[in-house]
């Protein structure tokens, strides 16, 4: 078993950043440890193999495409240096319009109060609030979009969007399919609260939610919204599977923590 210290020394040696003391230490280890010698040999072979990967010339279409997009941007604006920054614009306004400064300060104060009170009180979502899920999307302060995953396979199209708020993650799922699809979402019931709504127009679809599992059977389109409250804990990833005519059209693990 090679120690962490030796692995560290080998990596430093490969990168050419080992000090003279570290190099001497490694040399003495290599003299007596065949396993460490093997590691060095393999690491050196890896570094050599890496250097065999040549840089690729970019396609000739890249530069013209970049320049076209820059010219398109330029045609819609004034020169870069001619634009005052937002801060400069505010400063120049405040110099001779103190009324604006007062009104702006008041508005910021009200906004901060609203944000602070909402963020402090909404640490998790209880059952009674779940009927208001769709409303929450528009009203929870700091609710920011996460990632969007496009679904396009076997005539099934749609997307999955995540939105993050304070200790909350919302998944919005849109699916368009010629045949009925089955959606299942699995998560850890000990750490999250899971619930969902579906559009009333999807009367044929059966939605069941319980024990960390959500299933929607018989849907042909529309959207569902699943809401996760972390109950004070980090929200763990959820597994999502969408099936159509017995075949999976989407399988994935969705990170439900902002910034992951």
């Amino acid at each position: 078993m090679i120690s962490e210290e030796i692995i560290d020394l080998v990596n430093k040696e490969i990168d050419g950043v080992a000090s003279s003391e570290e190099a001497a230490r490694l040399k003495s280890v290599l003299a007596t440890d065949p396993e460490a010698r093997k590691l060095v040999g393999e690491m050196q072979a890896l570094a050599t193999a890496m250097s065999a990967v040549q840089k690729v010339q970019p396609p000739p279409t890249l530069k013209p495409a970049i320049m076209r997009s820059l010219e398109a941007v330029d045609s819609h604006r004034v020169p870069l240096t001619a634009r005052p920054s937002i801060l400069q614009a505010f400063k120049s306004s405040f110099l001779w319009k103190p009324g604006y400064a007062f009104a702006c300060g008041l508005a910021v104060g009200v906004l901060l109060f609203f944000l602070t009170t909402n963020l402090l009180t909404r640490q998790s979502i209880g059952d009674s609030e779940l009927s208001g899920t769709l409303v929450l999307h528009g009203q929870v302060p700091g609710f920011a979009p996460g990632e969007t995953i496009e679904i396009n396979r076997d005539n099934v199209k749609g997307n999955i969007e995540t939105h993050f708020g304070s200790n909350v993650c919302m998944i919005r799922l849109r699916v368009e399919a010629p045949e009925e699809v089955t959606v299942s979402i699995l998560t850890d019931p000990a750490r999250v609260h899971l619930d969902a709504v579906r559009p009333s127009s999807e009367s044929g679809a059966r939605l069941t939610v319980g024990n960390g599992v959500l299933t929607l059977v018989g849907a042909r389109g529309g959207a569902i919204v699943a809401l996760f409250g972390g109950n004070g804990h980090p929200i763990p990833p959820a597994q999502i599977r969408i099936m159509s005519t017995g075949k999976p059209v989407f399988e994935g693990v969705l990170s439900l923590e902002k910034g992951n």
Partner: protein
Amino acid sequence: MIELEDRALVQQTLDGNLRAFEAIVDRYQKPVFNIALRMLRNADDAEDVAQVAFLKAYENLRSYKPGFKFFSWLYRIAMNESLNFLRQRRPFERMEEAREAAVLTDEVETAEVAQQIEAALMRLTVDQRAVVVLKHFEGFSYLEIGQILNISEKKVKSRLFAARQILRGVLVKKGFGSND
């Protein structure tokens, strides 16, 4: 010298000279494209990401601080765009891995070792891959990689060492580097 030239080109661009930015594109399109290519393993996607990276650099040129190396700033944009691209398509990554690998190896590279490395890179997490690409293919120091990825030098080392262990394991299985 290059840094001084870069700063001059940036200033000329800010003064409204688009040709100065064209010189920046000439200078950096190859490394930016290659960063995206190593991260994404798809030439078409890499071209798209490189184009977006240059466009974002141009649009945000006022926020570039001359105390920072320009190419590090540009590579940071390119790497962030690559990571964003990967995160958006992550659930599909494994399914499409084999197809993309075939495209890249058929069209771009033929050397067997390079192919094995390219394939092995896809075994890494995107964060590990980013560090390996910047270290081995672009030759950045731990400090510069940390600046580009906005992580500590310590984290750069730990990701790099972990990545190498994985790559070593993959390549040894395929018969590379075994001296004994």
